[in-house]
């Protein structure tokens, strides 16, 4: 039983830079915790503090009941998969996997058996006598995994283990890593800046930004109710459309650029505190998949939907769906560092220009570039944020 507890963990680098600020996180035994955030937000730093590779400036780290702040890495009983794998180049695959056991003075025969079993699980048997330099990226990644799982540690730490793989292999290894973790049932902290990995792999997801933990919850909860603009924009691909808007008198209408949208009473009923923002600037958000073409007739739930117009700039056909990029005269809002610069994000269509919005629609939708379309959405799927603090207006 080894939960990992981080209490107000802070890291100030010798040059005075505070990379992690009062970070609280509790990873239950056997839980798969994904730590996600844009590049440079302190994910690696947080993980290295857990591993003991980086001195903790302040705060407390517990593994099980034991305070680990000043315990050396080798006594923490953790295994780590590094972003660049960090395999020992002078050892064979087998020696790499068995190295930790050897350092623990495990009997020779036992090492041989365990290494063989691990290699088999990971499909590395064929390459067991090769040096890492003679392996492909995917094989190296599996050796790095093997080196971690053979030890049966109390805690797994994985720092973007899939980021060096090509898209296809990444998808495949994603499932494999998750499966292995479930089977071993070891508390795991998994760092990534890829929100798809975060959504699909984690039991819970912790979203970080600039050294601060913003939200930690089940992936679906984070997707459905992000605490602020940043989390809303970061999770989901293509990301949520966020526009500046102003709330009308009594919060009964919304001004989006030059368009006036009448809000049904149910919106205010669900979020009474919106009244406070009446006649004020707010930020509204809507996910691309919540947008649909407004039909000639209002749909059954007619009074729960609102409509607005946009000009179609670009249509991306992805086979299973199309992404319709449209522009309005409303200002698009972007939280700093919201978009990961990784290739998968680009493929999925986050190439919107500021001011644009994206709608995800069925491939047979009739749209043409340059036309003006009417978009509609259910008000239940509409998000409201405080324009100043960026916090979600939930109630």
């Amino acid at each position, binding site marked *: 039983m080894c939960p990992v507890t981080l209490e107000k963990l802070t890291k100030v680098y010798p040059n005075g830079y505070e990379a992690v600020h009062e970070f609280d996180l509790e990873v239950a035994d056997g839980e798969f915790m994904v730590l996600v955030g844009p590049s440079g937000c302190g994910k690696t730093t947080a993980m*290295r503090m857990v*591993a*003991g*590779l980086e001195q903790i400036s302040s705060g407390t780290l517990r593994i099980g009941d034991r305070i680990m702040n000043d315990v*050396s*890495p*080798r006594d*923490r009983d*953790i*295994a*780590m998969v*590094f*972003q*660049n794998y*960090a*395999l*020992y*180049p*002078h050892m064979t695959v087998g020696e790499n996997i068995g*190295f*930790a056991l050897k*350092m*623990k003075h495990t009997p020779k025969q036992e090492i041989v058996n365990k290494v063989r079993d691990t290699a088999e699980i990971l499909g590395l048997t064929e390459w067991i006598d090769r040096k890492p*330099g003679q392996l492909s990226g995917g094989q190296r990644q599996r050796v790095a995994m093997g*080196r971690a799982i053979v*030890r049966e540690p109390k805690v797994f730490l994985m720092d973007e283990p899939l980021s060096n793989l090509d898209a296809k292999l990444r998808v495949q290894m994603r499932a494999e890593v998750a499966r292995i973790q479930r089977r071993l049932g070891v508390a795991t902290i998994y760092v990534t800046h890829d929100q798809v990995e975060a959504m699909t792999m984690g039991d819970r997801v912790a979203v970080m930004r600039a050294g601060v933990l913003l939200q930690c919850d089940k992936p679906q909860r984070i997707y459905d109710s992000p605490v602020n603009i940043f989390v809303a924009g970061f999770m989901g691909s293509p990301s949520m459309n966020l526009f500046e808007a102003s709330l009308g008198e009594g919060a009964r209408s919304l001004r989006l650029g030059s368009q006036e949208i009448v809000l049904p009473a149910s919106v205010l009923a669900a979020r009474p505190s919106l009244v406070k923002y009446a006649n004020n600037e707010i930020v509204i958000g809507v996910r691309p998949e919540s947008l649909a073409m407004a039909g000639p007739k209002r749909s059954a739930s007619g009074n729960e939907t609102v409509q607005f117009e946009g000009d179609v700039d670009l249509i991306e056909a992805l086979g299973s769906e199309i992404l319709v990029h449209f522009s309005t005269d409303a200002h698009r809002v972007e939280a700093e560092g919201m978009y990961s610069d990784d290739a998968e994000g680009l493929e999925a269509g986050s190439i919107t220009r500021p001011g644009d919005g994206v709608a995800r629609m069925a491939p047979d939708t009739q749209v043409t570039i340059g036309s003006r379309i009417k978009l509609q959405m259910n008000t239940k799927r509409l998000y409201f944020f405080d324009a100043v603090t960026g916090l979600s207006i939930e109630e």
Partner: protein
Amino acid sequence: MRLFNRIWSRTFAYVVLLGFTAFFVVPVIWLLLSPTKTDHELVVGNPFAIGTLHNLSHAIHVMFTFEDYALLNWLKNSAIYSFGGIVIALACSIPAGYGLAHTQFIGRRTLLGVTLFVMIMPATALVLPLFLEANAVHAVGTPWSVILPFSFFPFGVYLAYIFYSSSVPKDLLAAARIDGCNEWNVFRRVALPLARPIIALVTFFAFVANWNNFFLPFVMLPNSTNYPLPVGLQDLLAATPAFNPGQGGQVPIYRPELAIATIVAMAPVLIVFLFAQRSLVSGMLAGATKE
């Protein structure tokens, strides 16, 4: 026209290359042929003429038996001094380079600067102070007076530092720590085995420097039985009438015999080079590409 140009530039390149080859190879051929001739033939004959086997065996015999096998004794001394120096130099420079590259401590940058400074300082400049130092501790004339200065090899420290800081990522050492290594084992199990090309490189450079060093042992060792080869060669020169007309008393040495001694002095460096060549190349490329 273009073809014509190409032929000309090719020809030009070959002429230049051949010129340089001749410049460097001719003396070597001359040296290798010398012991097969008599002293007289050597001076007046065709430089590329090949002498007789009889001359060769005579020269070898004279040279090796000279002063009760002094040449073999010098060879042995050279080997002891060179390898003694190398062993200590390696034992110090590899860990030192590792420490400079991968630990933080006060004065680290200063130490690096000093290393660089003493590295570019000519070794001969230190000989006299070293002599005074050795004299103060009554080490003059002992093998240590040569071995210890030989083992001072800042170039090795610098090479190891460059290697460890450019080719051994910090995460690799971190991985070893997480895998259960204490600091000693991180070095012993991971850092040291990786340094093999650098060990070969340091060994080679230190060997060449030590083996050919003349001035330091010349100053430190007054007794001919302690001489390494270069100092012994100088002794032989003094016994050669052609170079030292005033020489008297000693058994005279002639130039073909001197050539034998020179070849004996050169051979080990050549042999070590031939064997070390492959790891040398990989060592020099170390750090050029990241693993």
